[in-house]
């Protein structure tokens, strides 16, 4: 339990000429739930992409444990309505999983018996869970979840996080997730990393939400309910204006 599944050392990533991430040093252990939080454009998704090897590093290293097996749930996956695909086929792509493995993954993700449904007929919540089931298929020891509760209401989100906690219990895997809802994930997360191009602050959920760095970043007082409200507003207005060199 005390060995790192993955450890980044002084990571930097450029997308084009823009520096998106710099000086990222962090590690994740098995059985740990880590939440990444930060404003739009702060490099959260890019960090995930660096971890799965989808974007090149401009400096730094990622040390991966030899047993590391990543299950990845991408952000906002849109399946074009012109592409017919059943849940079963979507899960079994590129293939090699038996019927039992697929139906168990769906049960584990909380959406049993969806195999023969068309993916585009699923509700938002069902689809998020099917994506989770897909990530669970390869029996991963590290789950990366990019805003897994997007489009879910608060109750749905809370249920989803309970499911995640249950998966950690039963499989002992490490989990890193990106979330905007710090007050909702708080109870289910061990550690919060606040990201804005670099790591602003990290630690236990309560200490991060009380920290001046976190409050400066989101421009709010220490009240968590107000925090959420203001943060959502922040979303609507600020799209490209975030300075990355904070």
């Amino acid at each position, binding site marked *: 339990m005390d060995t790192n599944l993955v450890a980044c050392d002084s990571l930097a990533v450029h997308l084009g000429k823009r520096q998106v991430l710099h000086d990222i040093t962090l590690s994740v252990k098995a059985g740990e739930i880590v939440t990444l939080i930060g404003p739009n454009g702060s490099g959260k998704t890019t960090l995930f*992409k660096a971890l799965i090897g989808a974007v090149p590093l401009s400096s730094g290293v990622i040390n991966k444990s030899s047993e590391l097996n990543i299950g990845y749930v991408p952000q906002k996956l849109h399946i074009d*309505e012109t592409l017919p695909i059943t849940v079963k086929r979507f899960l079994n*792509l590129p293939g090699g999983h038996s019927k039992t493995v697929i139906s168990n993954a769906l049960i584990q993700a909380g959406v049993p018996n969806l195999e023969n449904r068309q993916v585009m007929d699923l509700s938002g919540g069902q689809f998020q869970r099917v994506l989770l089931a897909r990530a669970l298929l390869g029996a991963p020891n590290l789950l990366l979840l990019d805003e897994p509760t997007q489009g879910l209401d608060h109750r749905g989100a809370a249920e989803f996080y309970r499911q995640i906690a249950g998966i950690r219990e039963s499989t002992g895997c490490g989990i890193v997730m990106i979330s905007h809802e710090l007050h909702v994930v708080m109870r289910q997360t061990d550690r919060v990393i606040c990201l804005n191009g670099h790591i602003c602050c990290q630690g236990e959920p309560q200490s991060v939400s009380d920290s001046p760095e976190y409050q400066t970043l989101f421009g709010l007082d220490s009240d968590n309910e107000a925090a959420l409200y203001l943060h959502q507003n922040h979303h609507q207005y600020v799209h490209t204006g975030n300075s990355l060199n904070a």
Partner: protein
Amino acid sequence: MLDDFLVRATLASVGVALAAAPLGCFVIWRRMAYFGDSTAHAAVLGVALSLMLSAPLFVCVLGVCLLMAMTVSSLSGKGFAMDTLLGVMAHSSLAFGLVAVSFLSGIRIDLMSYLFGDILALGKTDLAVIWAGVLMVIGLVTLRWSGLLLSTLNPDLAHASGFNPKRERFILTLALAIVVAVAIKVVGVLLIAAMLIVPAATARPFSKTPEMMAIVAAALGATASLLGLRASYVLDSPTGPTIVSISALLFILVNVLLKVIPAFSLNASPSSDQST
């Protein structure tokens, strides 16, 4: 048997349909219809090069199509939108091609056959080149099916499963260029995109899985080729356009039937109104 021009025409058009239709599914899923059309337009420059250099048509068209596809891919997102670039590249290569061809004497009549195809004039060598291209495309798409499909669904999921979406995209571009290069004599540059898109679009409501859609599209494409060839013989109409017309009629027929008898569809939801 191959001495009969009708047999050669049948084999050629069925071959092109079998390669184009499954590839057309990807063109539809990735919303690349305009990309396919533009690649085909650029082929005219390839025709001009081939005539000027007396080089093989297949090689010249393939080269020009690949060059255009690469340029568009590498420039898109760098200050130009994809469709702007395609519009500029496709029509300028079409224009340059037409101007270049006009400088060559004695081939003014030939040009029509490249724009609309001249399937009845195919020789045995043409047929061999077409089928070599057809088998290459079917082979590429079959072998790379999982990677192509996963990259189409989501590039990051493809990465996570060990595929490189950029390589898959190149394979698709290559397959597209090959189809254009072999279809040019069958239906001509102006109608190649129809061979890609129409059968795939017709197949969509019958399909529950991507594989099924590709197979149904291939069957529909081949059927349209056979019926079109027959119709053009009876009506004495140009063959390429007749094949595409039959294909379009099938599309209309299927969609009208679907409106009248919803149970005609095997798929629970051909329309988007149930998606969330």
